[in-house]
C-alpha cells in the first residue's frame, strides 16, 4: 500500500529459540483505528516495541510513518505518539509542567508549547487544576491528559497500549470519543485492549494467538467469517484453539 502509515512484511522477533512474533504482515491506512487484540503473552507488546523503535526485529521488514524500523528508530520516535498501560506522565509535576516537559522533549518551541498547552487544558477542562500535582487528580483525568500530551507534537500515529485499563465505563466512552475525533482528523490509532466492547469501536481488528495473527478484518466481517456472535465470542474461540 503506497500511503500506508504502518507497513510490515513478515516481521519476526525471536528470543533465543522462542518465536514471540511470527511473520507478521500488516498495513495501516491514514486515519484508521486499528484494534490489536490478543491474550497476555500473545506477542502484542513485542509488536508495539518493534514498531516504536524500542526493540530491533529479528527478520522481516517494517516501516512506520515512512521510516525503517531497523535504521531510523529515532525518526520514528519523532513521528509517533505513545501511551502505555502504565501511567506515563510525571505524577509529581502539574499538568502545565508535564505539558512543558514533554513538549520540550519533542523539541517544540516554547511559545508553541504555551499556546498549545493552553488550548489543550481548555479542551480537557483542566484549567482549574493546571497547577495541581498530577498525583492528586483522578485517573480518568490523567489519562485524558496523557493522551493529549502524547499528541502534542502532532504525530501521524499513536500507539495506545491498553489505554483504558482500570477506568470506569463512562470515562472509557469519553476516551473513545477523543480517539474518534482525532482519527477523523487523520490520526492513525494503533490500540491494544482487553475490553471487547472497545474492539467493536475499531475500524479493523486483528487477533494475535501465540505470535501469529489468527484473524484480521473489520469486526463485522470477522464475526460473520467465524460465525461468532460477538468479538468476545470470537476472541475466546481463537485464543483457546
Amino acid at each position: 500500500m503506497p500511503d500506508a502509515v504502518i507497513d510490515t512484511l513478515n516481521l519476526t522477533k525471536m528470543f533465543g529459540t522462542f518465536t514471540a512474533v511470527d511473520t507478521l504482515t500488516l498495513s495501516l491506512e491514514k486515519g484508521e483505528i486499528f484494534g490489536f487484540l490478543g491474550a497476555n503473552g500473545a506477542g502484542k507488546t513485542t509488536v508495539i516495541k518493534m514498531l516504536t523503535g524500542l526493540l530491533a526485529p529479528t527478520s522481516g521488514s517494517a516501516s512506520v510513518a515512512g521510516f525503517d524500523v531497523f535504521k531510523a528508530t529515532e525518526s520514528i520516535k519523532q513521528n509517533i505518539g505513545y501511551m502505555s498501560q502504565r501511567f506515563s506522565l510525571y505524577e509529581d509535576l502539574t499538568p502545565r509542567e508535564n505539558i512543558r516537559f514533554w513538549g520540550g522533549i519533542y523539541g517544540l518551541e516554547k511559545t508553541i508549547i504555551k499556546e498549545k498547552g493552553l488550548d489543550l487544558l481548555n479542551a480537557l477542562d483542566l484549567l482549574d487544576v493546571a497547577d495541581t500535582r498530577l498525583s492528586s487528580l483522578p485517573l480518568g483525568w490523567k489519562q485524558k491528559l496523557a493522551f493529549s500530551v502524547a499528541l502534542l507534537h502532532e504525530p501521524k500515529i499513536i500507539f495506545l497500549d491498553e489505554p483504558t485499563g482500570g477506568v470506569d465505563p463512562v470515562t472509557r466512552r469519553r476516551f473513545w470519543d477523543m480517539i474518534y475525533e482525532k482519527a477523523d482528523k487523520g490520526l492513525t490509532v494503533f490500540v491494544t485492549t482487553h475490553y471487547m466492547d472497545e474492539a467493536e469501536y475499531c475500524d479493523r481488528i486483528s487477533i494475535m494467538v501465540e505470535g501469529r495473527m489468527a484473524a484480521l478484518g473489520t469486526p463485522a466481517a470477522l464475526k460473520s467469517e467465524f460465525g461468532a456472535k460477538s468479538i468476545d465470542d470470537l476472541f475466546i474461540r481463537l485464543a483457546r484453539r
Partner: protein
Amino acid sequence: MVPIIFIMPFIQLLILSNAATFDVKHVPFHLQDLDRSSLSNNLARYFSSSGYFRRTGESFSSIQAVDELISRKADLVVVIPRNFEHDLITLGSTPVQLIINAEDGFSAGVIQGYTNDIITGFNNEHKMLFARAGAAFPEIQVTSSGWYNPELEYTHYMVPGILVILVTLIGLFLSGMNVVSEKETGTIEQINVTPVKSYQFITGKLLPFWIIGLGELTLGLFIARIVFHVPMLGSYLLVYLVASIYLLVVLGMGLLISTITDTQQQAMFVAWFFMVIFTLLSGLFTSIESMPDWAQLVTMLNPVRHFVDIMRRVMLKGSEFADITGSLVILCVYAAVMLTLAVNRYKKVSYV
C-alpha cells in the same frame, strides 16, 4: 525531600566532626607509688595536672592495679619503683613502669605519646639533679611542632574529610535512586519512545544533582568556617573547580548504578557497598600510609580518597593547582569514564 537534602548533612557535619575524634582526654590512671618520696610524688602530680590523665585510684599491689585495668577503671598504670628518688639522684636514671591498656591500639599509642611528653617534661625540670649526679645529659632536645595544623586541632583535620563524604553520599544516592525510580514508575518507557538523545537525558539527570552537590559543599564550607574555624589557606576557586569535577565522578557512578539496576532496593544496596569501601579506604579515619601496600594501591582507584586529600591540602596547607594536578588528573579520567559508561549503558531500548 528538599529539607532532608540540606538539613541532614548539616546535622551530620556538626555531630560527626565533634564526635569522631581521636583525641584522648582525661584518661583514668592508677598510681602505684612504691617510693612515697617527694620526687615520686612530684612525678605523680605531673600526670594528674597534665590534663590528659585523671587519677582514679592508688594502691601498693600489682594485683589491684591489674584488677583496675581489667575492670576498665583505669587505662594506664604508673608504677614508680622503690628507691626511685635515691636512684635518680645517685645514679642519674631509674626506670618507671607504664602499663597501658592496649585493647584499642590507636588510643594506646596516643596515651603512650602523652606519657612520653610528661616524662620528658619531668626530666627537664629535674635536670639539675642529673647534672649533679654527673650523668650524661642529652644535648639534642626534640621539640615537635605540627605544621599546617599547629594546635593539632582534630576538627581541622576531620571537617574537610567529612564534608567530602557528605557530598559523596548526597551525589551517589540521589543520582543512584533516580533513573531506577523512573523504571519503577514506568515513565522511562515513555521517555524511551521519544526522540530524546541519551546524552541529553543523562545531562538532564546530572545537572540538578550537580547544582545540589555544589550547594551542599557551600553550606559545608560555611559551617567549617563559622562553627569549626577551619582555616582556608588555599583558594575557594580551586576547591570548587575540583568539586565540580569530583561531582561528575560521583553522579556518573550513581547514574551508572541506576541504569544497571531494576529496583531502588538494588540500587541502594550497590550504592552502599561502594560507599562503605570508599569511606574506609579514603584516609578519612585511618591514614593511607599505614595501610598495606596493596591497599594503598587500591586507594588510588578511590575518588573519595583523592578529594579528601585535595581538600585537606588546599584548606590546611594552602596547596595550589600545580600541587594537586596528579589527583586532579585521576579525577578527570574517572569522570570521563563514568559519564561515558552511564551514557552508553542507558540505551533507549526495551530490556525484555
